[in-house]
């Protein structure tokens, strides 16, 4: 037990290190952008309006001051960490003075809801099919299912989403194709709002599951086909254990460990958002926010979103590493 505690502590230190390096990299990357948020704001304010050159020079100067862009790189960096340590990413530079955390907070629930549901569905479906296909290798139906899953898998996600949209939004218009809920529905835990959220999520979720299943399918299939020929499975078959039980209790269970690793990482990475899903289905979420931030050179917002994702992925990896020795006793704690 003590060995495990030491392991956990060391692992925790590694977690802190990774998060620290990650956020620094995000700082570097986002600040290296050639897009100047002040110039973006200036051109947003002047691209349609009457703008005399003198006025724009003055506007530029006062925006620089307002956004706090005066001062050297070192003091900016120090100020950044001072704020981040108390969980504050400062005001957004493309929606000044609204705090970055407010903008992220509004978009995040949608992203988490959409992607956790679709990731879990794809995981369950893909692994089930993959396990069956790996175990019953000679079954024609499962082979075909495998080929079908593999055929859908490489279709560019954009196309899958768009075809769904045209089929269910235009040719046979039964499903809503835009937004997270019906326009003008008041928010609340009532049947109308919840139903409208669910129906609006059907197409986005379906598109993500369609393209997501293939990966899990293939992983599970190859893992299972490897385990099937292990001695203990052969013994179990010779001993007359039913095939269903062998598949469930002996094969899938052992093959699931690496898949769960993958699931944890996928769930961690959902905080990046689903940019194309959000664009095609007009679904609210963090991906659109990230794109807008990148286009506007709003590095405060970019770092904010990136940091959420960095922490989430690191936590996912940490949890796997902490659980692994407990789940798989064969792994020695190092």
């Amino acid at each position: 037990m003590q060995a495990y505690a030491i392991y956990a502590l060391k692992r925790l230190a590694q977690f802190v290190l990774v998060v620290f390096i990650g956020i620094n990299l995000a700082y570097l990357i986002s600040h290296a952008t050639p897009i100047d948020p002040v110039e973006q704001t200036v051109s947003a304010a002047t691209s349609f309006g009457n703008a005399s050159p003198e006025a724009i020079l003055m506007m530029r100067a006062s925006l620089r001051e307002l956004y706090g862009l005066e001062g050297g790189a070192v003091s900016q960096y120090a100020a950044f960490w001072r704020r981040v340590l108390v969980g504050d990413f400062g005001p957004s530079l493309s929606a000044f003075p609204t705090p970055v955390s407010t903008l992220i907070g509004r978009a995040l629930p949608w992203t988490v809801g959409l992607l956790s549901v679709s990731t879990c569905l794809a995981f369950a479906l893909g692994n089930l099919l993959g396990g069956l296909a790996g175990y019953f290798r000679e079954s024609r139906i499962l082979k075909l299912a495998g080929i079908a899953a593999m055929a859908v898998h490489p279709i560019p996600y954009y196309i899958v989403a768009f075809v769904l949209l045209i089929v269910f939004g235009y040719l046979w218009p039964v499903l809503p194709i835009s937004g997270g809920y019906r326009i003008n529905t008041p928010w609340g835990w009532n049947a109308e709002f919840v139903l409208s959220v669910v129906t609006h999520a059907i197409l986005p979720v379906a598109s993500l599951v369609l393209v997501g299943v293939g990966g899990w399918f293939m992983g599970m299939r190859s893992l299972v086909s490897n385990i099937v020929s292990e001695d203990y499975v052969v013994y179990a078959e010779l001993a007359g254990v039913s095939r269903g039980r062998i598949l469930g209790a002996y094969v899938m269970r052992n093959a699931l460990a690496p898949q769960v690793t993958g699931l944890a990482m996928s769930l961690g990475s959902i905080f990046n958002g689903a940019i194309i899903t959000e664009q095609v289905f007009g679904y609210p979420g963090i991906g659109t926010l990230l794109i807008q931030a990148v286009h506007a050179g709003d590095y405060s917002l970019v770092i904010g979103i990136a940091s959420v994702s960095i922490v989430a992925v690191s936590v996912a990896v940490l949890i796997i590493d902490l659980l692994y020795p407990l789940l798989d006793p064969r792994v020695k704690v190092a």
Partner: protein
Amino acid sequence: MHALRHLALALFLAMCAVSASAEELISDLPRNETLIVENPEGTIKNAGWFNIWAINAGGQSTGLHQLAMDTLWYLDPQHGLDGVWMNSLAAEKPIYNADFTEMTVKLRSGIYWSDGVEFTADDLVFTTELHMKTNGLRWSAPFQINVASVSAPDRNTVIFKLKKPNSRFHSLFTVRWGAIWIMPKHVFEKVADPLKFDFNKPVSLGAYVLHSYDPNGKWFIWQLRDDWQRTTLGRYGKPGPKYVAYVDPGPPDKRVIAQLNHELDIIHDTSAEGMFTLAKQSKTSRGWFKGFPYAHPDPTLPAVIFNLQNDTFKDRRVRWALALLIDIKAVSMASYRGAATISAIAIPPTGTHTESYHAPMEAWLRDFELDTGKRTIKPYDPNIGRQIAEMLRPSMGEQIPTSADDIARAFGRGWWKPDPAAASELLQAAGFTRRGNDWMTPDGKPFAVRLVVEGDLRPVMTRAGSMIAQQWRQFGIDAKTEVAQGTLPDRRQAGDFDAMISWSVETYGGHPDLSYFLDSWHSQFVAPPGKMQTPRNWQRWASPELDKIIEQIRSTGFDDPKSVDLGREFVKLAVREMPIIPLMAYNVFTVMDQTYWTGYPTAEGDPYTDPVPNWGNSRAMMVRLKPAK
């Protein structure tokens, strides 16, 4: 098996429930009283922010500046409800003193804010003074630069004393897309920091008030005020739509689908192909023109903008050579599938400009001569607009107009005839040489042009740029497009480009005065290489002749007919020097669905305003729209 049957039944029932709920796009609003409009800003990331005076903090064309804001005057890009000029909050036109150092405004009475407080001169004075003492508000700079003091001798009169003569000071309060909007004094005087105030819920001076909005910024719904008569639109009669919803309908294909489903009454813009699809498949959809080119030509002029501080393009012969290598017919096809309104001169071919500039200058253009170094040519071909029309007639049939006037209005008049021989001569005269198939600059390097385009934010201009680069490439120039995406404004301001497709010419459309863009082309504002250029002289053209024209315009009144003559002088100078290669009007495929509403502005019916719905001027539509059923 039973389980499966149950599942199928459940799915079927769910589908039925879903189809039932998919019937109406908007919950709880009668569709026939609601106008649904695209907001081209897309998703507003900071939806709950309505303080339009803080720069770029929230959405603008969410209906906020079209329906809830008001200011002194409106200048229509088309013909207007009752003339191009509309006295809105002001009762009459601006009154200047002789040397343009003082402007007096007479205000209307009987106009009320949506919370029942009356609008008075105090609001205008407050707006001015708040901007003068606060840095970083959206219009702080123009107020601080221009205004010495402001006063209100009575509740309907405001006098601005200016720091220096400015004959166009009123244009700050004149809506051409947008302008300085008036603040409610009784709200903002209680606010500690106007830069950090969200103005939610907004107090409206327009005929509509905010009804509801999406916290995620996908839609905004506005409702007609009960006291709409006490607003400046009131005197034009009751606005038709009781509710106006500004929505983010998604990418162009989805806008088309939404209108085919009658869930989007006004599309702001789509691709040419999307427009044709709607024209073919929906009897109720129509554009600005009934047939080709459908689109509304905005008073904005996409052009090839050279960086004149770049050695390669300093010589006007090089710029002219590049212009003579462009086949505008192919560019029109590539960018707009022929639905472009071309212009050879640096004025957008739209609104009243065609009568002020394009038609009267036709003769001069025909006679215009260009010295190639070996011979003199007349580069203008007056028939190109007609040729485009004839090229499209076999496939588009009756949609192509037949009379010469209609063709000129729809497709433009003439352009420069492609002339590779003359281009070669011009380049050789400028010291360029040909090595094999490739052109070399005078200092012996390959002649390379990187043509910067914006990408999918402006698909039409990206498509035009890609065609122009191809034409230059086929002539032996190493030409390529570069998609700048979000870096375009930075690169444009920094002068970090050889050439780009963008616009540096923007006008009123409905009024011949060019100062709106031309004043900023004065050489006093040209930044040295490497420094930031201010709008709109992106080409960094410095010309003493031009400066003289601009200075004369500055001392000429806004409505003085002399300013049209000065404008024509500018056109001639720009043709000779070719600092930018004008291509066409920025045609916007605004598509209007007549299933629920009729009375939209159209070119041949009633061109009372620009239908493009993100224009502040588009509020004029509300009073002409009538329910279709």
